[in-house]
């Protein structure tokens, strides 16, 4: 019995430790809008952001620009190309991009990049893999489209029938 309670206590301590670590990690993450609203405070400081990779990587020599959207805003990340080799998906209409956690130095007006507000990445990790978004078209939408196209064609036919009739001249509007 005593042995069992010891094991239970150990498990509880471990769970608490795990949860505490998670909370600490989460609290380190800064929202992009928070960075933009406090550019001077965060300027030249190390920050961690988490968000979806969007668009595509813009490769420049050994580095690349990737853009991250965390739903509050989006920002450019200057990252080594080798660090983003693992990235599979960038978000667009057909894809949900990989969710990444980026740690790096935030610049309000980066002197190296013509005054960009950016983050120079020191560490990037994929938190969640992205995926292909399956598109579903509702039946209602298909039926509505079909009915409306039919009516449009009928209107067109009526127009051509009426306009092909000999026209009458009318008086001036003065």
């Amino acid at each position, binding site marked *: 019995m005593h042995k069992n309670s010891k094991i239970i206590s150990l498990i509880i301590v471990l769970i608490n430790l795990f949860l505490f670590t998670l909370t600490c990690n989460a609290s380190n993450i800064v929202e992009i809008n928070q960075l*933009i*609203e406090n*550019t*001077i405070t965060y300027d030249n400081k190390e920050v961690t952001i988490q968000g979806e990779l*969007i*668009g*595509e*990587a*813009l*490769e*420049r020599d050994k580095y*690349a*620009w990737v*853009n991250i*959207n965390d739903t509050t*805003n*989006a*920002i*450019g990340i200057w990252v080594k190309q080798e660090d983003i080799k693992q990235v599979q998906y960038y*978000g*667009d*209409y*057909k894809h949900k991009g990989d969710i990444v956690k980026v740690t790096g130095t935030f610049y*309000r*007006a980066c*002197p190296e*990049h*013509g*005054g*960009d*507000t*950016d983050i120079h990445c020191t560490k990037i990790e994929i938190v969640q893999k992205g995926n292909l978004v399956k*598109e579903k*078209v509702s039946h209602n*939408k*298909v039926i*509505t*489209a079909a009915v*409306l*196209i039919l*009516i*449009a064609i009928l*209107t*067109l036919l*009526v*127009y051509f029938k*009426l*306009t092909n009739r000999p*026209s*009458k*001249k*009318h*008086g*001036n*509007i*003065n």
Partner: protein
Amino acid sequence: MNNSRIKFLNCKIIFYYTGWVIIGIALLMFIPLLTSLVFREWNPVFDFLISIAITTILGFLLILLGGITRDNKSHVQWKHGFIIAALSWMLLTALSAIPYLLSRNTNSILDACFDVMSGFTTTGLVLTQDLDHISLGLNMWRHVLTFVGGQGMVVLALSFLVKETSGAYKIYVGEAKDIGLVPNVKGTARIIWKISMVYLLVGTLALWIDGILIGLKPVSAFFHGLFMFASSWSTGGFAPNSQNIMYYHSFSFEVITIIFFILGSLNFGLHYAIWQGKRKEIAKNIETQSFFITATVASTFAVIALSKIYPNSITVFRRVIYNVLSAHTTTGFSNVYARQFALEWGDFGILIMVIVMLIGGSACSTAGGFKGLRVGVIFKSIVSDVRKLLSSERNVKVYKYHHIKDYVLEDGVVRSSALIIVCYMLTFAIGTAIGTYYGYPMADSAFEAASVTGNVGLSIGITAKAMPAMMKVYYIIAMYLGRLEFLSVFALIGYFIGGVKKLCTKIQK
């Protein structure tokens, strides 16, 4: 002819031409439809099919209702021209909002109409949500709207769809494009479109190549190039991604857009004159002189005031001068975050931006604002009045200004210029007042009001889905008034008030 018969025919004329304009927009919807088909975006395909069908039905119904007009085109009067332009813009806004609404990227009909009006008027403010995930088809539609809106969509539709256009000049003026490049409006509209299409090819090619060089994939670079050109040339300010021009992180991309948005903000008459070899026109024209002076003065003051917040001259050029020129040409591309204007630029920086946004680009261009021509005319009239005061009464001198050709500076021209400027300032003042009423700071409210009134599209952070509905409505009205330069809208309002008054009198009898 009795009164009721005249009114009946008036309505028919308006219905007939408005109907053709609507058919024009239905045809334009085939561009995003094809884009979505090619890229297998099935939901947008059906969204555009539904929109095309609704637009076609309404268009042909109006044409049928106005059927008699087919034989009476020569009777288009000034009032018809103004009303057709104003009414078409309202109907087209509602119809063009259907794909937005069906895509579920906008929260309400109001937000969808806001974005369409923003596109048509080449403003560039955005309420569409999740821009980074919208379909290529819808993105194409956004940029088609802003490109066509810049050149004048009513004129486009009528010049290409209606055979007989003897009354079209009145509609053309109604859409705030009153320059005659050649004697007939059809020819003028075609020249405007020819100029735009040549620039479209050159601009898209330049941005496409540069896009590949800065790391975009070839197909993606093509669409980014096309969209960014459409926005630059039409001084629109839309971009395919939520970060606007910041998405590209590229000096070369910014420089190319500067070239095309400055070109887009110049008068079509000036482009045509240069195409005909009259290069001296650039230096002689009152609008280019006015733009050069105001842009230089504003940029200089902005650089002096803001150089302390940017580390070196390149960053000052890219962040300060780029945004000042983008505001002055009423483009609205921005490479700083909206909130950075409020938090970093300070009141003086905001003031400079407000002034240049209100001045805007050239008349009969794709730009908004109260236009360099009017600023030039008012400035010249002040100078001439002072000179008259200082010279002998016996000394009668005629003052002139040069705008494609020499014009005498008459009181009527000065009065109409001043009247339009007063209307713009009133719209701006009301917009600022509404902003402050809803609790936004004065400087922020003024910035956003100037942006909507001048059809600019820069934001200081007020324009958002959570913005009060009343402000969204006012901003739509301000964009509409600013683009049509008031007269057409006043004519439409007057026409309706007149109709209601007559109806009331009839009922009382």
